[in-house]
């Protein structure tokens, strides 16, 4: 560990001034929704942080999460934080390949046993572990083996966090989330398809600076700082929802005017993420701003939650057949009930005994 350069040295090497560093600490504090008073603490922690070993495992995934995290254009601060760790294994990014790559992983695990951080993207097939192997090792085995010496695990992307797209119905590989295999290590989920880059880097930074315990997570293992509110509640199109102004199709006036996309299936109301405020590409845009309804990708099973373009309020099941059956059954039962009622009446009419005026009193 001693031979590792501390963060300030690295910063100097990257041409970042002390002022720039403090500014970063302040914005990180804000991104994490921590009190501003904590900024100096973050600065101190980062300054004194040794570059911990990080092992990044990619399983059943599309590399979108890696793509996203690398889209933080260098030399931005995201790039900096990327360098603040020792990324010892990441088979997309590392130079080594084949046996050398696996050797690097094994080496890092051995050197830093009990202290390294595991980042996972992609889900793990359990129906038949051989569906996805790296260097002849199944994802399942590699995860178990690597997780054994980890200090903590960060599941990046919805696949690692909740099973994601591979887990979608009919889930041919039996894909599961990291948390369903590893139950004895702290796991932080950063879902999204992909997650927002700054959310990934910020969580890693918070883990490095303030420690695991400082990251408050919700019932789905997501840091509350980034997954505490729905997109709908923070969406700039929300005023249109409130006014009852909706795009009905993708090319109507409402769509051009930038009205609410609820009726086009937007999942903003049920999706927790900071997409609407933090956005992508350095705060440039996010899906709803680009004119597309939110897919709800930070939520488990988002692929199967009733269809991307079906409004949240619309029925998601196959109710139509049942409805027609109900019409037929209701009519049939109604006819049966009516027939019985008519029979009751017909019987009464048949039983009618003509009442004479002399029959009006009860004679005992």
């Amino acid at each position, binding site marked *: 560990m001693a031979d590792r350069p501390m963060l300030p040295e690295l910063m100097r090497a990257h041409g970042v001034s002390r002022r720039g560093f403090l500014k970063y600490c302040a914005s990180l504090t804000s991104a994490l929704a921590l009190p501003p008073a904590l900024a100096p603490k973050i600065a101190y922690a980062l300054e004194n942080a040794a570059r911990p070993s990080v092992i990044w495992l990619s399983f059943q995934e599309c590399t979108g999460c890696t793509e996203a995290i690398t889209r933080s254009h260098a030399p931005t601060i995201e790039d900096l934080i990327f360098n603040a760790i020792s990324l010892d294994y990441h088979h997309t990014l590392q130079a080594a390949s084949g046996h050398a790559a696996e050797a690097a992983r094994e080496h890092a695990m051995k050197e830093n046993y009990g202290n390294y951080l595991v980042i996972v993207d992609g889900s793990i097939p359990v129906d038949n572990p051989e569906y996805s192997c790296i260097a002849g090792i199944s994802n399942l085995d590699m995860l178990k083996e690597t997780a054994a010496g980890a200090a903590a695990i960060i599941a990046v992307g919805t696949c690692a966090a909740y099973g994601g797209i591979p887990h979608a119905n009919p889930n041919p590989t039996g894909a599961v989330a990291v948390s369903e295999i590893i139950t004895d290590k702290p796991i932080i989920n950063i879902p999204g398809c992909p997650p927002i880059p700054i959310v990934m880097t910020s969580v890693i930074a918070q883990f490095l600076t303030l420690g695991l315990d400082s990251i408050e997570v919700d019932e789905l293992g997501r840091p509350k700082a980034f997954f505490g509110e729905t997109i709908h509640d923070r969406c700039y199109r929300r005023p249109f929802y409130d006014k009852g102004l909706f795009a009905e199709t993708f090319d109507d006036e409402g769509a051009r005017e930038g009205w609410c996309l609820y009726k086009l299936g937007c999942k903003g109301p049920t999706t927790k993420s900071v997409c609407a405020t933090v956005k992508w590409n350095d705060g440039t845009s996010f899906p709803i701003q680009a004119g597309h309804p939110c897919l709800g990708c930070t939520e488990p099973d988002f692929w199967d939650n009733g269809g991307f373009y079906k409004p949240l309020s619309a029925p998601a099941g196959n109710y139509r057949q049942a409805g027609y059956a109900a019409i037929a059954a209701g009519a049939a*039962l109604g006819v*049966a*009930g009516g027939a*019985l*009622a008519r029979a*009751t*009446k017909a*019987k*009464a*009419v048949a*039983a*009618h*005994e*003509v*009442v*004479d*005026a*002399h*029959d*009006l*009193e*009860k*004679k005992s």
Partner: protein
Amino acid sequence: MTATLDRGLNALREQIDAPVASFFTSCVSCGLCAEACLFYKETGDPKYTPIHKLEPMRRIWQNEFTLFGKAKAMLGLGGKVDDDMLTEWETLVYDSCTMCGRCTLVCPVGNDITLMIRKMREGLSASGHGPAELNGAAVRHTEGTSPMGNLEKALEARVKQAEGLTGLEIELDKEGAEYLLLLSSHEIATGPEMIESVAKIMDKAGKTWTISTEGFEATNVGIQLGNRDVAANLVSRIVKAAEKLRVKTVISPECGHAFQAVRWEGPNLIGRAYKFEVRHIIEVLDQLRAEGKLKTNGEKDPAKITFHDPCQVARRGGVIAEPRNLLNMVADNFVETEDAGVMNWCCSGGGGVGANQRANDLQEKAFGRKKKQIEDVAPEKIVTMCAFCHATLEDQLENNDMDDIEVASLTEMMAEYLED
């Protein structure tokens, strides 16, 4: 034979049809019918809420005419209808309902509660729960010619009297006459005025008319009692007489329930359409007026006059404009009471209540509504077109020391001011 619970329940079953089923399904127990009911308004007792008076029939409908109700009844949740229940309900259905029909017009879901009371009475009368006075009247009318017994002799005497008073010849049982006049026994019992008035008016109008000695009584206790067999027997006498004399139009006299009996229920009681028309006497007079055949002498009654709309003729009979057209010819100072016309308050005596001794005290109380309505305009004279409203108003005004107000028949009033 004797009235039994079984016959009553059977009669109730016979009465249930799509309207009844729809009405009970629609009721949301909002209680607005009570606000239209003179018995509730004057007593404040919630048991007089109109829809509540139908509970036994509602149970029969639910338990025996609906699938869900049958299922409920199988679980023992249906609620029974027994003789004790009917005993409790007979006072609600006969003593505290004049079938005035106000509730029917205010029900927000459109329930014809009055129609259902009429149907309820079928069950009650067949099970021996009809009021004794009405049962007695039914026997008298079935055995004789009117609910007061045999009245042909009295009728003949009144006709003679009327002939004497008018100098006109009144031919009884005249075949081929245009009009056949029916009378209510009240009108025969109290004097010759009605016959006299009609004779004068018809003479001026140049119309032929007659009275049948075989079917002159218009009232039908079967309707008040709610017994269609009794009612059908009584109404068929009129039909037979009218068809025998081949008259064009039968005149229903100034009587509310008689108009319902002869005009609206009659064809359904005998199960076919009539071969003649039935019109209320005021409809006939108004038509004569429109044809220029009813002219007055130009004089008008100077008294402050108001009009009492009889429920069965006005609200439930659709004769509202006609009496006013006529009154305008003879009244100089005509004032309408509040709620006049469609929503007029009942005299408190209709639907058999007036004949039912047990209901006397309650009726007197219920008259309070009508009393207030009258007091508000303080008329000198109340004109009406129903002999029973007429008699009830006179009785109740006397009970309330208001007998300085005169009650008059519209037909008689028209005759009084007839062109010389």
